[in-house]
């Protein structure tokens, strides 16, 4: 694997040009990796671009309308030392 400083800057492949979802994923992953200061290989970037929509879809699927009244399952004891 060859490390690439800004893998998302490379030209999208022809299949990506034909696929808006893939292009969106490409741009999103590029931005997220840059924001996180992570430098990855081209091979890894391709893997992340392919799997990102699945992860995004799984996270989006948690925003169920009937959870509007729920509070997060996080708590702490303010008196704990």
């Amino acid at each position, binding site marked *: 694997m060859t490390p690439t400083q800004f893998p998302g800057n490379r030209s999208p492949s022809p299949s990506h040009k034909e696929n808006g979802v893939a292009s969106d994923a490409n741009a999103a992953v590029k931005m997220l990796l840059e924001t996180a200061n992570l430098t990855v290989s081209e091979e890894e970037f391709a893997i992340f671009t*392919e799997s990102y929509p699945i992860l995004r879809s799984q996270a989006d699927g*948690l925003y169920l309308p009937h959870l509007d009244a729920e509070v997060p399952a996080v708590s702490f004891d303010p008196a704990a030392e």
Partner: protein
Amino acid sequence: MPQDLPLTVKDAAAALRSGSVSSVQLTEGFLNRISLLNESLGAFVAVTGESALKAAQAADSDFAAGVDRGPLQGIPLAVKDIIATEDAPTTANSRVLDPEWGKGVDAPVVARLRSAGTVLLGKTTTSEFAIGLPDPDKGFPIPRNPWNLDHTPAGSSSGTGITVAAGLALGGLGTDTGGSVRGPAAQNGHTGLKVTFGRVPKNGVAPLGYTLDSVGPMARSAYDCAIMLEVMAGYDSGDSYAAQVPVPKYSELLTGDLQGLRVGVPMPYFYDSPEVTDEVRTAVFAALDVLKTGGAEMSDVEVPYAEQAKNANHVTLVAEAYSFHRNNMVNRWNDYGRFTRRALVRGAFLTAADYTQAQRFRSFFRRELAQLFASYDVLITPTWPSPAPRSDEMSPERQLRSVSFTGPWNLAGLPALAVPCGFSSSGLPLSMQIIGKPFAEGALLAVADAYQRQTDWHLKVPPVHTAVAA
């Protein structure tokens, strides 16, 4: 040296007390097996033979002096290599973890086992930081399934799973954040318990998912897991998540009685997923029939939003793990295994709102399950949808796409037990999962023990074991 080492803690404890074997003889026997098999199985990262033999000598001296610390005295066990032990480094199977981490100290759960007189044989392989898959370029042993070396032993408690199945120790410690005790137990063919969140202290354990992690016993039988849990469980002030709940004498709850047990069988998702093989479904149904014959009452139920629960567990896991690893990932990306970083990076792809929403879903899901458990004592599902796949077919992306029958219970913090229930036509173990109410480990172990009194799947040994015994 005994060639026919006992298969279970229970049998070994009886043999030690009858004088037919000493702890030193047992320990030498298991160390011999490790020396013969570890290179091909990749079960141990470090073997602590010297300190193990000292502990065995101490156990034998205690027996000779009439001191009996309980059924674990003199019993050889193994410890997953993300749990600190004073006599060996903790690596988390990673080039990233600070070598000073946990150095020279026992995690409380390890200290409890030592106080009970156990003999710790060494540290077992784990997926790096309990996530991802083995990377052969990083220099750690590659764990292999003892039933077929080309297949995965599952993770992340791979080494302990192999160790128990292949007879390299009588039991051991694993950790479970999304299925890491139950997966290896299922795919190596023995029993493994994911405890209620907070049941066993987890300080001294390298974290993965702070609100999901648990330390659990892995052994051939439910009885052996019960004996181990009696020692492992209980509050420790060093773990802010540890529960202050009394610890029952689990082994005394194993009566063999199933009369009136209310079993919920959630067909949607857990049985009807296209990923569930016919062999898995048939084996678990056959196990349900055994329980029914014993007096259990079966009902079809539905676990609402099971798929979302799996996803919420994953969002929680990678977000919490990424917060721990973020700085090292920025500076030492290539020091992480190739599969580890592919899994951990997902934490950078999620938003703070995604994590918070996963916790809102968690509140909802826990309440839904509490309502379900008002009518049922246990739920039973397959532990894994298929027998162990080939190792070269595994990837973090495949795991992302797959169903998980284990993750939902980590999200809810509930106890869940993997129990062997058959073999595939290709000779690989199959497993059912028994899930219960918070802190109902005793109920799960009692159901499994009753089943194991009627079956012997948990006592089957892989060919690699018998080859050495011969």
